[in-house]
Structures are given as C-alpha cells and as structure tokens.
C-alpha cells in the first residue's frame, strides 16, 4: 500500500482530514455523541422534560439486574436466538449441502426467492404474518381446519404459550434463505479434491457433510451466527407490528422495553441503562464477527 504514504510535493499531511471532516462531523453529532449521552443518562433519574435531573449513580443498573421484566425480556431475546439463528443456520446448511457441488438448472431463481425476505421492511413482514396467523381467516388456521385439526386452530399471536414461538418463527422465515446463500458462497472455496478423496475412502454423503463441508464453512457459520444473533437481540419492528410485547409480557423483548420505558413511561435514565447493557452485549458479539470475517478473508486470499 505504497500509495497511502506517498505524498504529493508540497502537500500537507493533514490533507486526509479535509476529506474526512464532513462525514466525521455528521457522524459525531448524530451518532457518536448520542451514544455517549445515552451512557451518561443511564446514571440519572429523569422524566425527559423537567429540569429535575438527579444523579443516582448505578441505581438504574442495580434496579435493572433485579427487574423481573428485564429478565423476562432478555430471556425472550435468548429464545429468539433459537428461532433467528440456530434453526435458520441448520436449514441453511441442509439446503446448501443439497445444492453445493454441482450446478442445478434454475438455481438463480431459487436463490432470488429465498433471499427475498431480507429486503422487505419488517413492518411489512409483520403485516403479512399477522394475516397468516389470523385466527379466523388466516391461512394457517384455514389449513389446520381443512385437515381436521380444528383444536389446533388457536389465536396464535394472542396465546400466552404460543405467541413467542409464533413471532420467533417469523424470524426463521426471514433468516434461513440468507444463511443458505451465505453457505453456498462459502462452499465455492472448498476444494473438490477433498470430496473426491473422501468418496474414494468410501465416506457417504452425510460423513462428507460433517467432516468436509461443516469445517470448510467455519468462518461462514461464524458470520451467520453472529449476524443472526444480533438481529435476534435488537428485534423491535417485528414485535411492534405483531404483538407489542403481549399478551401480557409474553413477547416482550429488550428493544421494546427500552422504547416503552423512554417514550411511554418517561423513565429516560432507566431506558438508557437498558440501552447501554444491550449495546455492550451487541458490541461484544460484533467484535467477534469482525474477527471471524478477517480470518475468513485471510483464508480465502
């Protein structure tokens, strides 16, 4: 990268700053400083509009760690990880392994279709699935009644037991195509010789999958894990449009808890503390993704 240090004759070494400055200013003012302000707010008790902003140290955090509503929301986020991450990755691996090694006619069309939920607004996804789950005329219950399972045709999104898995399965629907496409891209880098050698040794397709494909996709699986886990942890739009956290608190998640604390209950400091904890969790996981991505790039190079 010789061009980075190459200086033009008479050029100021601060030239780069001139190009960076406009983006940096917008970023600092509207993103970075608000992050710092969120952290600062988390040490105060404040309703958001009065002059009465009281420093209370770590009290918001102390409350947070004993608040059953926060525990419940965090637990729901973790259950979402199963639906947003674990299940889609397993489906993605299964589909990718079916397709991987030889061209299938018409594959481009399948890929386009399977990736589609990734580009649609989550509010639209929520509208679509509220209709799918509609207890009276939704396709799911219509189908269940047609095959004689009337007793299963419940109000999915209004049920204390089933609302959470129902919303979670929407996440599965959004993510599995993404995982498949990611894994297929990774499989192009696994050399055919490995499979040929394994075939000669008499390894069947399943053993080849376990011993060649899965290890070969290590960095892609890591990327999929971390990106989908982050999606599960910051879920907001989908819960807002499908259940608003209900019935009761059964689909309440951390993102929605922040929204409710800040803009419904006017507890700015407390909301900021939840947001800070969520951010720290997500930052830790994001740092992992960067590491695995870098490893992936080095391996491919």
């Amino acid at each position, binding site marked *: 990268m010789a061009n980075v240090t190459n200086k033009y004759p008479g050029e100021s070494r601060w030239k780069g700053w001139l190009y*960076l400055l406009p983006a940096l200013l917008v970023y600092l003012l*509207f*993103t*970075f400083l608000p992050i710092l302000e969120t952290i600062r707010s988390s040490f105060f008790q404040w309703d958001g509009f009065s002059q009465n902003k009281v420093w209370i140290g770590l009290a918001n955090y102390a409350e947070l760690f004993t608040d059953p509503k926060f525990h419940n929301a965090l637990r729901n986020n973790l259950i979402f990880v199963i639906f947003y991450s674990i299940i889609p990755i397993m489906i993605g691996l299964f589909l990718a392994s079916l*397709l991987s090694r030889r061209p299938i006619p018409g594959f481009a069309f399948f890929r386009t279709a399977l*990736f589609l939920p990734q580009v649609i607004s989550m509010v639209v996804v929520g509208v679509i699935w509220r209709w799918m789950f509609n207890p009276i005329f939704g396709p799911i219950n219509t189908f269940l009644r047609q095959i004689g399972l009337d007793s299963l045709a419940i109000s999915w999104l209004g049920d204390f037991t089933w609302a959470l898995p129902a919303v979670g399965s929407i996440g599965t629907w959004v993510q599995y195509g*993404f995982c498949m496409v990611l894994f297929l891209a990774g499989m192009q880098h696994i050399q055919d010789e490995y499979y040929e050698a394994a075939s000669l040794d008499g390894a069947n397709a399943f053993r080849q999958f376990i011993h060649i494909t899965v290890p070969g996709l290590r960095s892609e699986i890591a990327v999929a894990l971390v990106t*989908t886990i982050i999606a599960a942890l910051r879920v907001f739009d989908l819960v807002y449009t499908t259940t608003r956290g209900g019935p009761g608190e059964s689909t309440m998640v951390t993102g929605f808890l922040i929204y409710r604390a800040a803009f419904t209950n006017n507890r700015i400091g407390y909301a900021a503390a939840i947001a800070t904890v969520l951010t720290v969790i997500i*930052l830790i996981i994001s740092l992992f993704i*960067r590491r695995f991505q870098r490893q992936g790039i080095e391996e491919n190079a």
Partner: protein
Amino acid sequence: MKYPWKKLLPRYLILVVFMLVVLLPIWGMFTSAFKTSTEIMGGPFSLPSNWSLDNFGQAWRVGRFNVFFKNSVIVTTAVVISSVFLSTLSGYAFGALPLPGKNWLFPLMLIGYMVPFEAVIIPLYKLMDTIGINDTLWALILPQVGLSVSFGTMWMASFFENTPGELTDAATIDGCSRWQTLWHILWPIAKPAVTTLLVLIFMWTWNEFLLALVLVQNEALRTLPVGLAFFQGKYTANIPLMAAGAIIVALPTILIYVLFQRFFIRGMLGGAVKG
C-alpha cells in the same frame, strides 16, 4: 458434471418446498390486495374475481400513503445521495490519503456501525428539539446520514485500500490533484462498490422504523413503514386495504433488489445485515 435426474428430482422437491414457504405468504398478501372484504373469507389463496386496483386507490388517498410515499422518497433520496458522497470522501481519506490519527479514527467510526439504534434514539429526540428541527424531515435525514456514513466509510475505505497504487501514481505523474485522481481515475472503477453501498443504504433507509417512529410526531411527516404500522392499528380487520398498503411499502425495495441482486447479496454477505 451434472446430476442425473434421479438425484436431481428430490433436490428440486425439497428446494421447492422451502421456496414455497417463503413465497406463499408474500403471494397471499399480494393477491389479497386485489380482493374485496367478502372474498378474503373465501380462502386465503383463492384468486380475486376481478384484479381491481380500488384498494390501492383507497390506501393511497384515504390512508394517506401518497403523503407517506412522498416523505419516504425525500428522506431516502437525501440520505442515500449525501451518505454515498460523504462516504466516498472519507473512505478515500482512510484508504488512500495521509491521515494522522487514522489508528484511533477508524475504531471511532466503526462503533457507529455496530451499535443498535436503541442506543442513540433517546438523546436524538432531545437533540432535535435543541437544534430546532424536531418534527421536520431533517430529524429523520441527519441521524440516518450519521449512521450510514459509519458503514459507508469502512466500505469505501476497503475499496480504496485495494486499488492498485500504480494507478494513482500514474495519475500523480500526469499532474492530477488528489481531487482529480478521486473523481477521474478512481470513481469510474469504483462503480461496483458504490452501487453496492447505494442499494444497501437505500434499503436500510427505506425500511427504517424506530427513528421514524420516535423522531416525528406529525402524521403528515410519517414515512411508509411508520404509516403502515399506524394504518394497521386503525384498519386491523380490513385485510385488503392493509395488503395494498404493505405492497406500496415493499414494492420499491423488491424492484431494486431484483434489478441489483448481485450487489445486494454481495453487500449483505459482507457482514451488513438488517436489524
């Protein structure tokens, strides 16, 4: 080497099943938008007797989707153009120019790309009030430019780092300034990277929900996703009308996705994923 049909057929069947799981809900919603309220009761995947656009007309005017659409177009256009322009400049600074402090500037910019919107939304509301742009479209545009240049800078920096040094050296010898080198030599070959950035920022901005929900209160300033969410609360039983609204929101991103698929997929596999 191709599969014999005996091996191909079961693969096709499995793929078709998983594809139908994705497509049927979207297709069902699509056809619902053309139905009447009574036709909705006649089976979810029955076809409308008459492909009438009445529901779209009603959502457009009565549901005020014409207003939301206009707002979304304004916000998205402003965010996409300014973010791509600013990111090109800052990415160039990181990737190809002398930049004292680069070592701490890079992680500083990176943070914005990793934090959830929940971490910035609370002070932003207050900040917009302070600078007097609360309840204007600026309150949606500026924060989204700030968040987008974080990703955009890194995306463009990695492009500029990987351009061959000979190219810029030759431009230097020919007497090009840094500015001319950027726009005459590098910009033309940056098209794939810029297109990817463009379509990603377009999609994120068009679909963004939380900021738009919190930072404007005036109904006339809502963007499409927020408009649709409130619309759903109001017309919860009127599936045809809601389906029409949902299609108005989703169609632009679907069209751009189908046209620029290659760029979308490359960008999103590069670690850029929706929240």
